[in-house]
């Protein structure tokens, strides 16, 4: 390496191999060896020799951070925030106000004033006034909707004079029991509702193959949901016995067909009255005896209760219990919450309304209903409130066209004990509620409204209904509502018109009720109708799930709407399950067919609201 004394002296410049030159702080030319591949000449300061060094590594801000630059293009790292938080800008100058992690804004929350108390975690409804209400059910204004008449019964089949119809909830078919020349038939129908108006499409009669000599009003039917079978029992007046036949339904509604099992003789006498009940709960259910049959007035004058297992090719009788002497008039038997088969009846000899309770595996209990006034010509029926585990017995006590109706609340005090307490209420003691007992009626549990409905036939071709609430301290009656006259024509037959029911669930409906014009002769033509007592519900207008609890009107009510994640008031949810609005306003995985989807549970205490209003189930 030559020594060079200033730029003027440079004429030639030689150096070693693979060098680069630079001048130092004294102006002297220096050299530095070329570095390794990929290295770059890097200053080490004004007074130090430059050197080849590796390129600096990529910029880094540390682990688990989001990177941003400030207003000088300097990179910085921002540690990730807590789960669920979102990166939020502090403005356009990140030097002055760096971004931060903040809780996610609650999208899908609507706020309005409440019009009534709403509990968090339950569904809130948008009122026409823009306020928020809880889900509720109320009687529709005016008469119980339009009565949809069906023009006659196919082929002269006469509906049975006892409870004549039942609902197959699996095939959505209303079956009407009828007789024609003493042969038992089932008439399948499609029932549908549009708003408050029911409609019914009747199908061709289905012969119950094993019942050809049955009393004109002596057949009963039920649907066994556990075994997916229809069950029919008939009082055979040719042989003086009771036959039972089960069958499996195919198809739906008016086009349903039935494949019948072998008909079985189940008694050696023909009782005065026959009732079938689906034993849906309690010990009887567990034992497999899903069919309860009451024979009122057997060959010894007593009530006889039998339990059957219909799961095989023919029904098998599991056990029989004998109750009190039965009198002459019976009402629909029911299964209470403990598996007891309860049966109300009027004992003509004693002029009393009575009840029996048959407990599978234990026997019979029963009592007189105080004050128990009833005579022949009275009408009696019973229904069971499945929510409150209480029953209602309704009795019409006069044979005049201006009769009164009494009802008793019954409390089930446990399996096998059969103890019943109750309070009588004469809610039809005013003229507007007079009941023509010869025209009969029925009462039944309406799961949709949580009330027992009592139907009865009045004079002047009208019928009426009354919602009854059972609270444990006596029946509380609502307002009786009647149709206008000439909606249907009463029968002039000795046993008058009969009105029986079948409950059906579905969108925006409560129940269907069949009205049958009775007859004293088999095979005569009878018209019948299906009508409903429409209870309006605001369920369709539900908006979302309440975030906070309000205690009355005029308070700020926040509601999670679509996209919101409801959590307040919720617990024990099943992740991944769909949740639906119940008639109570609460959320449940239960969907009875008409319940509205709210959304899917994403945690045990969280639901992602996916639906609102009239969205499909």
């Amino acid at each position: 390496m030559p020594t060079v004394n200033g730029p003027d002296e440079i004429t030639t410049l030689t150096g070693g191999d693979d060098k680069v030159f630079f001048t130092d702080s004294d102006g002297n030319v220096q050299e530095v060896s070329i570095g390794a591949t990929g290295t770059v000449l890097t200053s080490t300061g004004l007074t130090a020799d430059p050197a080849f060094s590796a390129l600096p590594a990529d910029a880094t801000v540390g682990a688990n951070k989001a990177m941003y630059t400030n207003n000088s293009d300097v990179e910085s790292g921002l540690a990730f925030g807590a789960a669920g938080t979102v990166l939020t800008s502090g403005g356009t100058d990140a030097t002055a106000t760096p971004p931060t992690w903040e809780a996610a804004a609650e999208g899908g929350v609507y706020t309005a004033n409440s019009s009534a108390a709403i509990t968090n975690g339950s569904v809130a409804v948008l009122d026409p006034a823009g306020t928020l209400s809880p889900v509720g059910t109320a009687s529709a204004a005016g008469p119980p909707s339009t009565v949809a008449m069906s023009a006659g019964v196919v082929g002269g089949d006469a509906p049975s004079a006892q409870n004549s119809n039942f609902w197959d909830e699996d095939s959505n078919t209303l079956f009407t029991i009828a007789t024609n020349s003493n042969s038992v038939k089932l008439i399948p129908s499609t029932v549908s509702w549009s708003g408050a108006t029911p409609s019914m499409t009747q199908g061709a009669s289905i012969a119950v193959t094993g019942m050809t000599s049955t009393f004109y009003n002596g057949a009963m039917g039920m649907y066994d949901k556990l075994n997916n079978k229809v069950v029919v029992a008939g009082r055979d007046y040719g042989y003086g016995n009771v036959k039972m036949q089960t069958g499996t339904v195919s198809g739906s509604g008016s086009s349903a067909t039935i494949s019948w099992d072998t008909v079985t003789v189940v008694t050696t006498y023909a009782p005065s009255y026959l009732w079938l009940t689906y034993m849906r709960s309690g010990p009887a259910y567990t034992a497999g005896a899903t069919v309860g049959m009451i024979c009122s007035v057997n060959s010894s004058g007593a009530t006889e209760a039998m339990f059957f297992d219909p799961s095989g090719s023919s029904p098998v009788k599991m056990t029989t219990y004998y109750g009190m002497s039965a009198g002459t008039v019976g009402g629909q038997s029911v299964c209470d919450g403990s598996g007891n088969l309860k049966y109300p009846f009027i004992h003509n000899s004693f002029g009393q309304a009575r009840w029996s309770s048959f407990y599978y595996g234990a026997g019979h209990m029963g009592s007189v209903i105080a004050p128990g006034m009833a005579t022949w010509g009275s009408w009696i029926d019973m229904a069971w409130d499945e929510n409150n585990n209480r029953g209602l017995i309704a009795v019409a006590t006069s044979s005049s066209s201006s009769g009164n109706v009494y009802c008793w609340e019954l409390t089930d005090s446990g399996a096998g004990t059969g103890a019943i307490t109750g309070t009588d209420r004469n809610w039809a003691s005013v003229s507007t509620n007079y009941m023509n007992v010869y025209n009969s009626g029925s009462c039944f549990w309406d799961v949709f409204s949580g009330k027992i409905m009592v139907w009865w036939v009045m004079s002047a071709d009208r019928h009426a209904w009354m919602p009854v609430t059972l609270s444990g301290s006596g029946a509380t009656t609502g307002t009786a509502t009647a149709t206008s006259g000439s909606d249907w024509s009463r029968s002039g037959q000795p046993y008058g018109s009969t009105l029986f029911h079948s409950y059906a669930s579905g969108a925006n409906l409560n129940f269907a009720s069949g009205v049958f014009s009775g007859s004293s002769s088999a095979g005569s033509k009878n018209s019948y109708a299906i009508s409903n007592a429409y209870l309006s519900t605001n369920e369709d207008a539900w908006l979302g799930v309440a975030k906070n609890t309000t205690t009355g009107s005029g308070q700020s009510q926040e509601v999670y709407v679509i996209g919101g994640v409801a959590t307040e008031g919720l617990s024990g949810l099943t992740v991944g399950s769909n949740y639906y609005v119940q008639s109570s306003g609460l959320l449940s995985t239960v969907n009875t067919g008409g319940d509205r989807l709210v959304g899917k549970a994403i945690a045990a205490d969280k639901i992602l609201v996916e639906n609102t209003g009239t969205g499909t189930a």
Partner: protein
Amino acid sequence: MAQIIKQKDDNVVAFIFDEKDTLTLDEDKLAVSYTGKIGGEIDMIAPLVNSTTHEIVAGVTPPIRFYGGGFTTYDGSSFTVDTTALNARIAEDPAWVDPPILNIE
């Protein structure tokens, strides 16, 4: 002609069938196949009736009407209806109708 099922101990008649019907009375039930059925198809069973308590009597001239439910007995040559019991039963059942005329030749 008819064939009947009656109780052995008191001659109470449980059923009257056409002789062309096929009856099978065994230890746990009576099985009936009505006239014209092909093969062994069973039309009706009666678990309450069995060969221990009941018997089949064939070649019987049927009555005009058969009052079942324990009101009719057969002594081997003729039918007897307990009219006292029958009338009492009718009196307590406002829905009572007489059984049909038997269609058995």
